[in-house]
């Protein structure tokens, strides 16, 4: 597709579309980087993408067309789908289900997360019961047809969905993992009668057994499908108009990337697209300290993402949830909650102040943006408290209306609660901090890790205003705010390797001895060769030379009679030599490590289920540019004082404001202080010290402890 073979010497761009801001990181030849931020355009987020690319082109002193001609790869993450689920604004979705089984989605297998809390209800199902329509058809567990699909029945159901103006249709029939023909037949009818509807078919989305997990994942996919498809269509159209001919890759929840058409078919793979790059970005940030365990948080306008990385490895799960909806596709374990700069303050039935999950996003945005937002948000509170500057927001490109923010908070929050304006704004600030601290607690304390043993890497435009207070909630003493905090994930995307995961089912006993060994070896090798050829084709098309292609082979194995598998890494050597004893030995060992026992002595037969191949294309990483150490003084960057609310000092007090873009390696200061950069503000509360490291990261420590 490319006119010339993409060379890596040219530009690469990481783009992270958030609910409020769209972040850019341009990687130019020789490791030079340029960060940029653009207000998101929720009605059509691709507008902001192009606007940002134009701005980058301008910065490089060229036209957007010329610039794009020199861009080899755009890696792109989006929270478009995440935000739709978090705010309950998924597409209007219908479900065709096998007659007699339309409630599985809502029943959630009859469990609840909190067994002793009789008020903690599940969120409403993405498809309400009146849009879950039964269809006569049936396949049995072995895949044999029991009742062929009743076309008239399907047509009636589809007509009804059409009449209800449904935008997406999920099809999930019993045992479609064993026989997909009925689903395909229904899909054909949907395609015919509702050509514009987004179609999500369970046997394509997640071709594996377990009806509930498959239904939930398929419905999630449908609910976000139209939103993502619309977005990607606009984006590729706009890029084509701008003559972009390089590779476009979309960040997926599994921490790898894939081309847009594949992603549009499997929209649910982008549910954690944006935050999936955070662990990689965090590793780069920790490089000067030779530490590989940390917590990353990213607070944007709409959502807050927290991830914990131990020894360099982010956790992956196939039992994930997004807003408590089951998602069985492999994804990094990232906790996303609806908390961001745009989170709206409200008062609940019990008279308690709440923040979010509803967000004003970028449009209309917080009241202080002056774009028609009427409901007070977290950003409005930060402005009232002096943590944000009305003049210098987004480097002065957006002037904030402080009076409007004050009015909204006074009228909607302070008055009903009988508080002063300041009390109300500070209440909003505290509530959202607690919400974010709980999200971190869920991925640390609740998993048995003491958050105090992990540095907190705080990213996102809105994050560093809250970082120190959140850390204090958790007892974390060290906070790192990277130089490009506001475009943290965009930076991570440029460090992400290309990754394609393949799986083929290959159910048979693992041979013990004799002629079997060779035969099975040939079969498995045949499959692996097939997958590998496919993988190398894909990586080649993405401009990855063979020397930078890595293959990882794995087998899903289990003891006969078990219902779950263990995925075992297998060296190429063992596969090549049909050394099944070595494979079996690895399985026994891993089973013992995971589950405390093995059945080696019993001689229980081992079964092979799936062959897996992960193909990794190692990309060139931006070289981390190290700054030279300078003196400790920050005076050169002092902009002057501003009144800022400091509860520990009894009210508004003058606080020095520094220009963060002029602070560098070795500069030190003590709180209280505000450090303003073009795209982010760091609040250093009293009792904290800040120091810049070699990567330009601002390191906050409580009580000024030096590490």
């Amino acid at each position, binding site marked *: 597709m490319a006119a010339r073979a993409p060379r890596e010497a040219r530009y690469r761009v990481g783009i992270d579309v958030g609910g409020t801001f769209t972040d850019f990181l341009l990687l130019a030849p020789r490791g030079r980087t340029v960060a940029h931020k653009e207000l998101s355009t929720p009605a059509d987020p691709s507008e902001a993408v192009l606007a940002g690319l134009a701005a980058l082109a301008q910065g490089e002193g060229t036209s957007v067309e010329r610039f794009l001609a020199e861009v080899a790869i755009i890696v792109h993450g989006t929270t478009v789908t995440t935000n739709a689920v978090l705010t309950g604004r998924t597409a209007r979705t219908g479900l065709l289900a096998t007659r*007699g*089984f*339309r*409630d*599985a989605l*809502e*029943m959630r*297998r*009859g*469990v*609840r997360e*909190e*067994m*002793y*809390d*009789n*008020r*903690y*209800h599940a969120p409403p199902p993405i498809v*309400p*019961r*009146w849009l879950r329509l039964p269809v006569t058809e049936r396949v*049995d*567990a072995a895949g044999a047809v*029991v009742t062929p699909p009743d076309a008239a029945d399907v047509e009636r159901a589809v007509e009804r969905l059409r009449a209800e103006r449904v935008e997406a249709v999920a099809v999930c029939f*019993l*045992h479609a*993992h064993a026989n997909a023909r009925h689903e395909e037949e229904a899909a054909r009818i949907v395609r015919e009668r509702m050509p514009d509807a987004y179609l999500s078919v369970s046997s394509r989305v997640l071709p594996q*057994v*377990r*009806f*509930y*997990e498959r239904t939930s994942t398929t419905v999630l996919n449908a609910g976000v499908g139209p939103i993502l498809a619309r977005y990607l269509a606009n984006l590729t159209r706009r890029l084509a108009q701008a003559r972009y001919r390089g590779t476009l890759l979309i960040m997926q929840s599994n921490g790898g990337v894939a081309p847009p058409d594949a992603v549009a078919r499997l929209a649910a793979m982008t549910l954690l697209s944006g935050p999936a790059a955070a662990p990689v970005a965090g590793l780069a940030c920790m490089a000067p300290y030779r530490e590989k365990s940390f917590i990353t948080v990213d607070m944007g306008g709409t959502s807050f993402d927290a991830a914990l990385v131990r020894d360099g490895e982010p956790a992956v799960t196939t039992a994930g949830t997004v807003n408590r909806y089951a998602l069985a596709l492999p994804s990094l374990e990232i906790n996303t909650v609806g908390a961001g700069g745009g989170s709206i303050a409200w008062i609940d*039935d019990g008279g308690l102040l709440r923040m979010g999950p509803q967000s004003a996003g970028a449009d209309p945005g917080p009241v202080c943006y002056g774009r028609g937002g009427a409901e007070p948000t977290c950003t409005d509170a930060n402005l009232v408290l002096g943590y944000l500057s009305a003049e210098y927001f987004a480097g002065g490109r957006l002037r904030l209306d402080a009076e409007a923010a004050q009015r909204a908070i006074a009228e909607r929050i302070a008055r009903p609660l009988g508080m002063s304006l300041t009390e109300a704004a500070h209440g909003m600030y505290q509530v959202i901090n607690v919400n974010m601290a709980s999200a971190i607690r869920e991925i640390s*304390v*609740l*998993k*048995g*890790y*003491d958050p*105090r043993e992990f540095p907190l890497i705080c990213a996102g435009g809105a994050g560093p205003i809250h970082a120190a207070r959140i850390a204090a909630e958790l*007892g974390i003493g060290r906070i790192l705010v990277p130089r490009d905090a506001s475009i943290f994930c965009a930076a991570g995307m440029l460090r992400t390797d290309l990754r394609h995961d393949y799986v083929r089912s290959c159910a048979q006993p693992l041979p013990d001895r004799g002629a079997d060994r060779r035969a099975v070896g040939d079969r498995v090798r045949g499959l692996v060769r097939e997958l590998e050829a496919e993988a190398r084709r894909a990586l080649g098309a993405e401009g990855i030379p063979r020397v930078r292609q890595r293959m990882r082979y794995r087998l899903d194995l289990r*003891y006969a*009679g*078990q*219902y*779950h598998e*263990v995925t075992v890494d297998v060296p190429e050597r063992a596969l090549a030599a049909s050394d099944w004893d070595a494979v079996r030995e690895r399985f026994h060992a891993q*089973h013992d490590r*995971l*589950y*405390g*026992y093995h*059945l080696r002595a019993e001689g229980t037969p081992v079964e092979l289920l799936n062959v897996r191949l992960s193909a990794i294309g190692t990309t060139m990483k931006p070289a981390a540019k190290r700054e030279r150490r300078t003196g400790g003084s920050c005076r050169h960057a002092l902009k002057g004082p501003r009144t800022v609310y400091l509860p520990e000092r009894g009210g508004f007090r003058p606080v020095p404001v520094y220009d963060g873009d002029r602070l560098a390696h070795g500069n030190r200061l003590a709180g209280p202080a505000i450090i303003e950069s073009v795209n982010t503000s760091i609040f250093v509360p009293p009792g904290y010290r800040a120091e810049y490291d070699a990567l330009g990261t601002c390191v906050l420590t409580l009580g000024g402890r030096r590490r």
Partner: protein
Amino acid sequence: MRRSAPKRDAPMRRAAGTRRRIDPVQVAVVQRRLKSITEEMGLTLLRTTRSPILNEARDFVTGLYDARGRMLEQTEYIPVLAFALQPACENVARFFGDDVHPGDVILHNDVFSGGNQNNDVAVFKPIFDGRRLVAWAACKGHQADIGGAVQGGYNPEAREVWQEALRIPAVKVYERGRLRRDVWNLVFSNIRLKIVEEDIKAQIGGCTVGERGFKALVARFGWPRLEALLEALFDSTERRVRKEIAAIPDGTYRGESYAFYDGVTEGSKMKIALAVTVRGEEITFDFTGSAPQTPGFVNAPYSATASALLLTFLMLIAADIPHNAGILRPIRIVNPEGSFLNARFPAATTFGNSITGPTSDAIFRAFAQALPQMVTAGWNRFLGFAVSGHDPRKQRPYVDILFLSLKGGSGGTWMADGYDHIGLINCAGGILAQDYEMFEIHDPHFLVKHEYLADSAGAGRWRGGLGVETEFVIDGENVTGVAFGDGVEEEARAFGFFGGKAGAANSIRLDYPDGTVRHAKTKEIMRGIPRGTRFHQRAGGGGGYGDPFERPVEQVLADVRNELVSIEAARADYGVWIDPETLAVDAARTAALRGGGR
């Protein structure tokens, strides 16, 4: 309202045996770490066991206990097992005394020495720091078979424990890491299904995972320090429970309920008489005056009743209190031996866990006055149907307790409807209904229907949870079904509270291929169920809370639109007039119904 609580230890304090201060955050981290170790143990059972009762329904508990057997932390997929391991662990620790060594593995199921149900077989593994016993890891799971007269263990015809199960008092199956093959063979020669042997191995694996996790914790803190943190954990938990109890007005509160049909005498009913006395920070549950033990298996061992009580009490207090032995300190239980809530040796008791429903009813009724916003209306009393037979596809026996079809609704409560399809309060929404596809892969059963049962929820300002209707065809051979449960009689429906209505009743019906229709009793063995029989179960709904005429019209309309409440029921129970054609609410008629309807 009440005297103030005596001042207890401040959170930062010196613990006995250590000079360093106890850091409350470290205590919280240890508690969470313990929780995650028990979860890893649970994962082992989920991922490696063979019986769907374990790997699909999660009918097991995994936990860590101190050297004396006191609960440190546990997973409770099934809350009725909440208090089911500590008494057994204490018994095991007492029985073996000093004769415990690294590498020992102990089995136990005996209900007369701390067990709660014969089928629930526990594996214990001692954990050592050097030569000092510091803790126990334990896994207890509901086994697919446990010997006795009837496969699967539920035997309404039993009159004594030996007709129910093989009794396993504390016995070592491993000693110092060596399998005692003779003992192992003795146990498993008396159990019908081979998978039970495999599943016990998985439980041993789970204990090993727990042992490794706990040892890592000892290595990190050092034993004296960890011990101090654990004591602080007990103390802080106790403080929180005491605070909760202190907030309940002092007084004696009474609640009553009935369990129906003892499986022997038609029309029999057993009374539960409960007096709850709250005095300051302590609470006493007194079951004196409850019905005497029954001749059949409708009897609870002590542990089962204590668990039922505890799980209901946990719903009445803050939901985030850690579950360890500290909870038990301010609670006193009076449960005289010889009643059907604490049956005397050698009574049959397999039904004991299932008396939780009636016990919870009595507790909620007792607290209706003191904690009106915390109690729920009645939960659907479950009716189970254990099936065993031969699977012609696989040419091997199969057993299932059909968790799929027995989940009814829970009771409504202040500010919240009941949960739909949540199931027995024993499990409180912890037990997974089997996945349809896995169900058909495991069992020779062909599902026809599994959906919400319309009009099953008790009407109320906050309605009860919905029940569920299940239908499948039995393709197994030589199938025996054992019905065990409650909730079919009019009187046994989930009760309404504060003006709410009762939920729908349970029923099980079998349509034989020859046209015969049979309704199962609540305790009954049905032998020789022919292949091709159609099984039909209705699990009823929960009771409503508050006056249904006060339920917002749009919520009633939403239920009608979703076909969960019929147009007729909306009119009769909720006083909302909805046009069947347009689904529009007739405001005038609704006002007339609601205004003049009482």
